[in-house]
């Protein structure tokens, strides 16, 4: 399948979803402007459609275009193993809006979106586990935003390692860690 065939199949089924397309460097980039449930059904269509079948969500990422508006560009890199075709989908969003999570469609979006949330500060609605992943839970700021300084927001000498909390993913009461008696006491 080449770029034009894929684009024709997409625009035929969802003509209102594609707002711009580009084929730079031989790759198909499409920009979408649908939000909410329409966005989810569009994504589900890309995975489930018999001719397209983008079964692999390679990666989710985002680019910070500040001071342009809308500020962020969320990028989904989709791949169809059967057609050997790659589709790069752009979803422009403003700083104060959220994106519906596609982790119900591709499991790989679970960690992909967590990383985007952690490093870019874009919140994904209805995500099963929207926590930071690469930085620690009490980290302040989102490092890959353009207004985040390269060397961080504070000096390493001012960082208090002793009070750093180690958080658990299982937070209900029955899941508390068992107490291990101290052998020295």
């Amino acid at each position: 399948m080449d770029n034009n065939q894929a684009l024709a199949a997409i625009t035929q089924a969802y003509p209102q979803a594609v707002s711009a397309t580009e084929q730079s460097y031989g790759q198909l980039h499409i920009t979408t402007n649908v939000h909410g449930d329409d966005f989810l059904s569009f994504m589900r269509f890309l995975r489930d459609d018999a001719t397209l079948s983008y079964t692999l969500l390679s990666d989710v990422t985002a680019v910070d275009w500040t001071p342009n508006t809308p500020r962020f560009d969320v990028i989904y890199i989709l791949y169809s193993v059967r057609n050997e075709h790659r589709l790069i989908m752009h979803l422009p969003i403003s700083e104060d809006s959220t994106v519906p999570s596609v982790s119900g469609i591709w499991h790989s979006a679970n960690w992909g979106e967590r990383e985007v949330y952690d490093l870019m500060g874009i919140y994904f609605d209805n995500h099963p586990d929207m926590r930071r992943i690469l930085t620690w839970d009490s980290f302040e700021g989102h490092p890959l935003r353009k207004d985040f300084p390269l060397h961080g927001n504070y000096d390493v000498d001012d960082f208090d390692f002793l009070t750093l909390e180690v958080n658990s993913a299982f937070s209900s009461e029955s899941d508390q860690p068992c107490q291990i008696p101290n052998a020295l006491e």
Partner: protein
Amino acid sequence: MSTQTKTMLLNMGPHHPATHGVLRLELELDGETIRRAHPHVGYLHRGFEKMAEHKTAQQIIPLTDRLDYAAASVNNLGLCLTVEKLLGLEVPKRAQYIRVIMAELSRIMGHQLWLGTHALDIGAMTPIFYAFADRELAMEITEEASGYRLTPSFLRVGGVAKDITPEFVRKVREYVKKMPKAIDGYHQLLSQNAIWMKRTKGIGVIDADTALNYGMTGPSLRGSGVPYDVRKAAPYSCYNDFDFQVPVGQDGDSYDRYLVRMEEFTQSVRIIEQAIENMPSGPIMADNPWSTNPDLDSVRHNVDDLIRRFKISSQGFALPSGETYYAVEGAKGELGFYLVGNGETHPYRLKIRSPCYYLVSALPYLIEGHMIADVITLIGSIDIVLGEVDR
């Protein structure tokens, strides 16, 4: 008297030797059976993507060495190809063949490290000695080419750092001759070993659709029967010149993933053999006055080339406005780089699609319902390197 059942929470890592780095796993145990598992990553996060926004393209190459440090050259290849794609550079054929040799050598080195540690984790001590002794041969070839053993940074945007020597050719030929026997040796140690089969067969079964859904790529996906290999699906760097096969498994368990990687040894050696025997002659660097270094000989005799080399080394070169994603087949799976340029010498954004990151995200699915001892098998069988997970 009433009995009360309570699950126990066990923290495994981040300094557990079997986690291959700094991976922390929270396990919810019912006896010795695992009900739920949750991996915590990020202990090795060095912020490469942020650092890359403040470096020139050549300066990012050493960073990529430290992604999957067990197989460094193939990471260099991924970045160089992405930058070349954005610049529209055509790399000479000789450079591409040298790159293929380096990439396949690093793949073999990565797989040998995996084989040794995976078997050691499960309890077989012998394979690690053989695997590491043979890995030393590949290390020596890498050293002959680049001067470094583990982190060669040998590739450059537009070609490779320097031409190969007759000694390099001799060593590679010797290596190609020795390896098939060594691979047979690995097979004899493990493939029909009753304990090994008992520990890996039927452990961590994942079917093809679920594996794809979790974003698994590389040998771990091919173990489930999906013949997706970037070298075949979208050939880069002259891979369509070489005759090689993509091994796939059937059951999607740890044993099949093991067999797939074992067969990849043979295929990689085949590619290296074809590349060294059909090595074309010619330049090893693309010739573009704005982005590639002139060769050292002309730098010594021509002042314009001296200035060009100085400017490209000190200031770098401008990356044109545009966005591109380029993927190569890393030792662990699809290693992709999403590069955004805006006309400056530093990338506006560089996103590294790390295969191991998504492999770790599938761990809870694989682990569920197994015993603690199988966790060790599973971490080994998806072959993760935490340097690549955390970036």
